[in-house]
């Protein structure tokens, strides 16, 4: 029998439990699954790797993360590869992913 599981349960499985309800509504499955692809370079949970050269992104201020991505995208902040990545995302996508990453403890 199919359980009447609320979609929110999806969000609960690791991080969203730490959030107030209002913030939780801002995180969507797009942000979570897309944000998780950042970990290939930025380490498990976006926390970097000891001795690694790619900085952590988890738990940073959402506004800072979003602005950094936007500045990479415009070229205002110089980068090696991040401009090439950032150009693949809209403002709204950057903001929602930043929100998700900022809430990783």
């Amino acid at each position: 029998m199919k359980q009447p599981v609320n979609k929110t349960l999806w969000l609960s499985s690791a991080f969203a439990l730490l959030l107030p309800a209002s913030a939780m509504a801002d995180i969507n499955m797009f942000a979570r699954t897309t944000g998780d692809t950042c970990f290939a370079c930025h380490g498990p949970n976006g926390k970097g790797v000891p001795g690694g050269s790619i900085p952590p992104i988890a738990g940073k201020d959402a506004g800072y993360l979003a602005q950094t991505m936007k500045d990479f995208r415009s070229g205002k902040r110089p980068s090696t590869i991040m401009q090439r990545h950032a150009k693949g995302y809209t403002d709204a996508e950057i903001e929602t992913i930043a929100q998700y990453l900022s809430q990783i403890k």
Partner: protein
Amino acid sequence: MSIKFTRRNFIRTASVTAALPAGALLTSAHAMTSVQGTAQPHVVVIGGGFGGATCAKYLRRYDSNIRVTLIEPKKTYTTCPGSNWYLAGLTDFDSITHSYQALKDKHGINVVHEWVSGIDPAGKTVKLKNGETLQYDRLVVSPGIDFRWDTIEGYGPEDVDKVPHAWQAGPQTKLLYDQLRAMPNGGTYIICPPPNPFRCPPGPYERVSMVADYFKKHKPKSKIIILDAKDKFSKMPLFMQGWQDLYGDMIEWIGASDGGRIKSVDVASKTVTTAEGETFKADVLNVIPAQKAGKLAFDAGLTNESGWCPVHQNTFESTIHKGVYVIGDSSIAGKMPKSGHSANSQGKICAAAIAVDLNGWDMPRPKLANTCYSLVANDYGISVVAVYQFDGKVMNKVKGAGGVTPKGAAPSQYLAEATYARGWYKSITHDTWLG
């Protein structure tokens, strides 16, 4: 028994657990699901490379109620990324070889080191060589590549101990390393890259760079000849510029149209004959044959006439067998290259798709990323980047994003990319196996 799990009572539960660390939250999420009385679904993942190991880990991340069994015959996994760096002597073999301990201990995955002897998609079972039969609810297959041994006369699987391909990392990589070390100064290394599509498009050319780096330091009179089955290759202008700047005339590339396509190999004399009938004799010969999906994919009937596995590219579920997912090099993944990074991304989206399917959630349409770094020298890195999203039909490139390292950039850019290449390796191996 069924307890309707509303957002309201979920949040109430959440407030109780709010003070716990992330690890404990997984347990509480698990407990909550158990409250509903849901049976624990079993997902079997076959193949412990970048695709399979990532998928196993992220299945547990997305729904800790899922029981995951990862089947991989090897006790440790040696990666193709980084294996060229090892050939140059820039890193040691242990640094590119990883254990499954963290997946077992930290993520609760049942890792079984055994060969698969058969898959029954209708009966939803996997048979192991030890006689055991596993029942699954969903199956993920990530078998990597196999070679088309019928494409080059005189070169078959029995010849790889003399003429390595070194395109599946491990003993083959060590063999090529040893042959390069034993080669006299002034010798010739010949590499024959395969036609498209193949695992790691920039890989053969990074290998050339790394062998050149080793020769320049230790055997400067030596030559490298590339007999290519193609007329162009990944990051070609960047590699060409780097080779010219760093290695002068040590490297000669012969494209398919200029007589580079090989027809046959004489293993005993390490001589290659091209389609035009010209012969080239090597001291160290490295033939990388044309490729197809891993053998397991064929055995399970997951391939089509192309020799690769067609999948619904938003979920990576096979279009041939329902409930079976194919990720990594074996899959037909739209514009995504066959790379470790692609496989890692696909492992995550596949894990999400299975969690979504098992729980009746909505499938998101995430954006995936791929970055392929290559070292042209120890302090000289280049890259190609792309962002992908399912467009309703295929996993397509997001327009306006991606691209390669600018040609003629300042040395500081190449140095930074070499540093980030190593950082990428550390991170992705932790994301896949170690962290």
